[in-house]
């Protein structure tokens, strides 16, 4: 018994099997997480190493290089990048998509352990982070407080940051702008000198005084007692009483030589939200974890946390990235539902029968829901790609069911009983239904085989559509005949109202059939004219190709803007703060679309991961803007950003600014970036080249935010010790420089404990004694004999400029000239840049490389182009095997070029770009457009086999296949229409794909309806002539 026969004979089993599939699918759907895109992030591991007080160059030689050399041997490494800047080295290891980040982290940890002993003393333990700098925070919280402000850091650290950091998947929780308590001991160097004391000895004394010692146990009588000395300070003021030495028989207290200050850290970052000062808490996620899930967990945790906080501490969510993801997904879900509605209407209009429509429509939810089982099983998520897959498939899944149902109806009309009509009707079309599904699978299955960036994006799409199509075919071969056998009747009665509505539709469809038949009749008799017209049309339609730009992933308006604004180096924090405040006032007035402005100013503490990844200094303002939802504003985020850039250009006090629309989501739909990497060791040379290049790039229209990655040179004082003089005095560089460091940077003597918390006790010169070169020169350095020498006697202090950051990529120094593409397309920008580079004279030891989004785009586009060729070949193979002929598939393939003309026209008219999504749309098109051709050629063949002449076969075949072709095409087009028209957040992503498919399919269908019959007639005519000629020859021989 065949599959359909048993399905028809066992309606209960058939129904329940599909009910089971639907239940399983809904169960999986319930558990599916929501995300913006499939797990697309690069696998990155970051190693952050702090070496306080070291300059960028020192960091590069002493920390970054040894670490890089060792980390370079980690398996599967794709790129190793590093940034060495003052105090810290940041190495980013980039791996391929899909590598196991856990085992790689262990690998990295092993390598770090090996190299650790080669690092200089004072370098802190390297920290491994499983995320990259370009990852935007998941959630940003603001905390404000009144009475608790001085203790805010500890409160937030303990009660907010720690519990949040424990959440699975959270990469880091950083607190910015909360004052951190510290006990400072400000030393007066003159008094120190007078008493012959050093910072080191004072620190030593403090350390010795601040101890608790268990002294053992004693037995007294029948009991044992432990004896302890509790020497730790119970109050910061106790420090004043510490004896740090004696002179002339008199004891010297710490208070004699210093001021003990129980205060907050000296250099700190201040953060403001809508003008109110408070702390900002930034939650970042680990590579590969789900934003929406984390945001949900964080918000859940927060409600519990809020109860435990002191009553004056208020926590608010500034940015919740999951909001925009949820909005995007709900927008896309809406389009899927609209598509469903449109498809129902099309089917109803063409069939004109309720029962038949219900039978066909049932295929849609069943096949779509079955795809959720796949997603649930593979750990996928509901994202733009998987939902787009549903939207793409929704119009195609009904095709098979329509073909089956149509044939069953024919059988019933001929007089079969529904039961046997269902079996025999299905039997007749089963092979062609499977073949047409195979052509689609030939298109979508190869998508699952791509690797790299494009692979991560489209593997899911490929699998989803393949599975949906397979299930829909199974459905069409089992459920559809079963339901037809149960529900269909011969000539069912139509209600009067339905008749009234439907009659005009039916009449116009009949008219369409007739006029189409006339037109095809004309076309096959005027083949030359048709071919010439088609060729001219094709050539003309290709003309706008020059106007279509390319892009990687379309930029998305998610209402978030991140900005870094730099004032001249060395600007005091107060002035920077004032500027930030002014900007806030200005922008709030000028752009009512801005909902929230958060900014921080100043140097970040070393413990602040988020802060230390950003550029931060007293002259830098980091801003985060949040705009009203897309529907509530007239201007797009990109317009506002352009206007903000213009504002900043008019402010002379701003030396540099970088406005990132999309909030730095560099990979995921932010504006495209174009980086030119200038590799070369010599600072001066590379600087010259980079600056020249940046000037040239800035002149190219459409490229904004041009900036050179190496920051401005910071003025710095270098102490150049004279080794001879040091040796004479019994000193060496490391001792001498340590003395210097302890006085300027300070020495953490010990930890002050209070209520279970630890605060550092820092011994340092009082601020007024570290403000001039003389202060530095007068520092006393003691040798081992206790003799004091002034620093100026051992060397000299010179002023120099050094680059604040040294960047390296794959162990080579580089400068990146980065720019943002706004108002032009990437390919045009790149050719402009290449032209500019060609005009420059570049030394041989420096080389330039265009990177950024461009590189990703090129890689992906070349992957996709190869894929397109493979798919065309596969589709040809499937068709050739179905027709057992090489010429029929060739005829059908004529619809592909017209599909491309449609794409070109649609993109040009709507002003869209060719990006990853539209490219995939183009690939899908190949499978969809040939389906129409298959249907037509198949039926024309059938007519000829039944003995009709070529022209008659073509005309009647065309006429009878017009409705199925129009119906399947319209379901696909209308299924995609809501995607093309949608205006919700994130629609930029899927819009271009839908436009591509709609444009290509419309043009190619209209032309296929004429071209394919015409070319068929040409080929068939030639074939007949050839046979006749051969027959004549053979008869002559005889």
């Amino acid at each position, binding site marked *: 018994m065949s599959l359909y026969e048993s399905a028809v004979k066992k309606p209960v089993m058939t129904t329940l099997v599909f009910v089971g599939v639907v239940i399983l699918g809904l169960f999986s759907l319930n558990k599916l997480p929501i995300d913006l895109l499939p797990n697309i992030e690069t696998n990155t591991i970051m190693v952050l190493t702090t070496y306080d007080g070291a300059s960028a160059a020192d960091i590069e030689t002493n920390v970054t290089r040894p670490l890089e050399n060792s980390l370079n041997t980690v398996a599967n490494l794709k790129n190793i990048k590093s940034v060495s800047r003052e105090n810290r080295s940041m190495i980013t290891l980039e791996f391929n998509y899909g590598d196991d980040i856990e085992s790689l982290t262990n690998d990295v940890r092993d390598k770090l352990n090996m190299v650790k002993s080669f690092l200089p003393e004072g370098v802190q333990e390297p920290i491994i982070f499983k995320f990259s700098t370009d990852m935007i925070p998941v959630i940003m919280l603001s905390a404000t407080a009144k009475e608790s402000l001085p203790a805010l850091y500890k409160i937030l650290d303990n009660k907010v940051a720690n519990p949040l950091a424990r959440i699975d998947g959270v990469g880091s929780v950083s607190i910015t702008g909360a004052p951190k308590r510290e006990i400072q001991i400000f030393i007066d160097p003159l008094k120190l000198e007078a008493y012959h004391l050093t910072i080191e000895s004072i620190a030593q004394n403090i350390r010795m005084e601040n101890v608790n010692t268990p002294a053992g146990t004693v037995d007294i009588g029948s009991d044992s007692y432990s004896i302890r000395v509790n020497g730790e300070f119970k109050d910061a003021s106790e420090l004043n009483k510490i004896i740090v030495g004696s002179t002339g028989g008199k004891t010297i207290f710490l208070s004699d030589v210093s001021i003990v200050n129980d205060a907050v850290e000296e250099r700190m970052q201040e953060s403001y939200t809508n003008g109110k000062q408070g702390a900002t808490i930034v939650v970042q996620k680990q590579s590969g974890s789900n934003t929406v899930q984390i945001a949900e967990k964080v918000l859940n945790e927060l409600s519990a946390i809020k109860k435990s906080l002191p009553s004056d501490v208020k926590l608010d969510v500034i940015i919740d990235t999951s909001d925009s993801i949820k909005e995007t997904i709900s927008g896309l879900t809406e389009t899927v539902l609209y598509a469903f509605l449109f498809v129902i209407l099309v089917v109803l209009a063409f069939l004109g029968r309720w029962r038949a429509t219900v039978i066909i429509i049932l295929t849609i939810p069943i096949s779509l829901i079955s795809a959720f089982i796949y997603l649930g099983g593979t750990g996928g998520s509901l994202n733009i790609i998987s939902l787009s897959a549903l939207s793409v498939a929704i119009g195609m899944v009904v095709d098979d069911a329509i073909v089956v149902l149509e044939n069953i109806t024919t059988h019933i009309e001929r*007089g*079969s009983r529904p*039961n*046997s009509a269902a079996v025999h009707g299905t*039997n007749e079309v089963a092979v062609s239904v499977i073949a047409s599904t195979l052509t689609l699978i030939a298109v979508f299955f190869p998508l699952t085989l791509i690797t790299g960036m494009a692979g991560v994006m489209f593997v899911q799409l490929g699998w989803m559509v393949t599975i949906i199509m397979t299930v829909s075919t199974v459905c069409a071969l089992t459920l559809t005949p079963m339901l037809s056998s149960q529900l269909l009747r011969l000539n069912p009665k139509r209600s009067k109202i339905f008749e009234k509505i439907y009659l005009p539709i039916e009449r116009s469809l009949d008219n369409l059939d007739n006029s189409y038949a006339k037109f095809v009749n004309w076309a096959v008799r005027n083949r030359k004219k048709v071919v010439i017209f088609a060729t001219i049309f094709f050539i003309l339609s290709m003309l706008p190709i020059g106007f279509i730009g390319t892009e990687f992933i379309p930029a998305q308006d998610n209402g978030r803007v991140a900005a870094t604004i730099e004032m001249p180096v060395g600007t005091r924090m107060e002035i920077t703060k004032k500027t930030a405040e002014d900007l806030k006032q200005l922008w709030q007035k000028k752009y009512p679309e801005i909902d929230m402005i958060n900014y921080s100013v100043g140097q970040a503490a070393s413990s602040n991961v988020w802060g230390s990844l950003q550029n931060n200094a007293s002259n830098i303002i980091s801003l985060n803007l949040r705009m009203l939802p897309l529907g509530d504003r007239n201007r797009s985020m990109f317009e506002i950003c352009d206007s903000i850039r213009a504002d900043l250009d008019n402010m002379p006090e701003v030396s540099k600014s970088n406005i990132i629309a999309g909030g730095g989501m560099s990979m995921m739909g932010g504006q495209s970036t174009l980086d030119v990497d200038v590799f070369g060791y010599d600072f001066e040379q590379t600087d010259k080249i980079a600056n020249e290049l940046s000037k040239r790039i800035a002149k190219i229209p459409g490229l904004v935010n041009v900036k050179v990655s190496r920051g401005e040179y910071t003025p710095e004082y270098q102490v150049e010790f004279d080794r001879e003089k040091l040796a004479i005095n019994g000193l060496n560089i490391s001792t001498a420089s340590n003395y210097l460091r302890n006085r300027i940077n300070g020495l953490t003597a010990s930890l002050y404990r209070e209520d279970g918390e630890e605060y550092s006790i820092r011994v340092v010169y009082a601020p007024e004694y570290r403000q001039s070169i003389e202060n530095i020169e007068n520092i006393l350095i003691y040798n081992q004999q206790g003799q004091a020498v002034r620093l100026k006697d051992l060397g000299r202090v010179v002023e120099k400029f050094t680059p604040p950051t040294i960047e390296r990529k794959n162990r080579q120094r580089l400068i990146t000239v980065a720019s943002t593409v706004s108002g032009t397309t990437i390919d045009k920008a790149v050719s402009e840049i290449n032209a500019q580079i060609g005009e420059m004279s570049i030394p041989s030891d420096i080389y330039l490389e265009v990177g950024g989004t461009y590189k990703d785009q090129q890689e992906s586009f070349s992957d996709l182009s190869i894929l397109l060729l493979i798919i065309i070949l596969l589709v040809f193979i499937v068709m050739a095997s179905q027709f057992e002929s090489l010429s029929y598939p060739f005829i059908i393939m004529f619809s592909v070029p017209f599909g491309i003309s449609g794409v070109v026209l649609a993109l040009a008219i709507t002003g869209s770009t060719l990006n990853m999504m539209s490219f995939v749309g183009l690939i899908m098109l190949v499978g969809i457009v040939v389906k129409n051709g298959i249907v037509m050629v198949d039926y024309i*063949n059938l007519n000829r*086999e039944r003995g009709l002449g070529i022209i008659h076969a073509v005309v009647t075949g065309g006429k009878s296949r017009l409705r199925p072709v129009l119906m399947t095409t319209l379901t696909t087009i209308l299924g995609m229409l809501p995607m093309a028209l949608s205006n919700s957040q994130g629609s930029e992503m899927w819009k271009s794909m839908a436009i591509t498919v709609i444009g290509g399919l419309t043009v190619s269908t209209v032309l296929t309806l004429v071209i394919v019959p015409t070319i068929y007639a040409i080929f068939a005519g030639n074939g007949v002539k050839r046979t006749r000629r051969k027959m004549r020859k053979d008869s002559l021989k005889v």
Partner: protein
Amino acid sequence: MKAVFIAFDQAYYEQILTILNYAHIKGFTRWDEVQGRGSKTGEPHFGTHAWPSLNSSILTVIDDVKVKPLLNDLKALDATSDLMGLRAFVWNVEDGI
């Protein structure tokens, strides 16, 4: 005893079975898929791409009295549809075991 050979569109099978039961005809031989073409009208039943439908055929040997009612019933069934096709032929049976 007469042999009745019935050739019909596959889809008629169940209806014909009902007719046979109704006429108390128990024994028959059936070929599920046979191909054929009518002499005058009717679509060919070849099971090919051009003519996908197929015939079935039944051979039943019955008492003479049962032949006429059976043919009448079959004729009535055939009249329901022009396109399906149903034919029956009768001849004598000499002997049997």
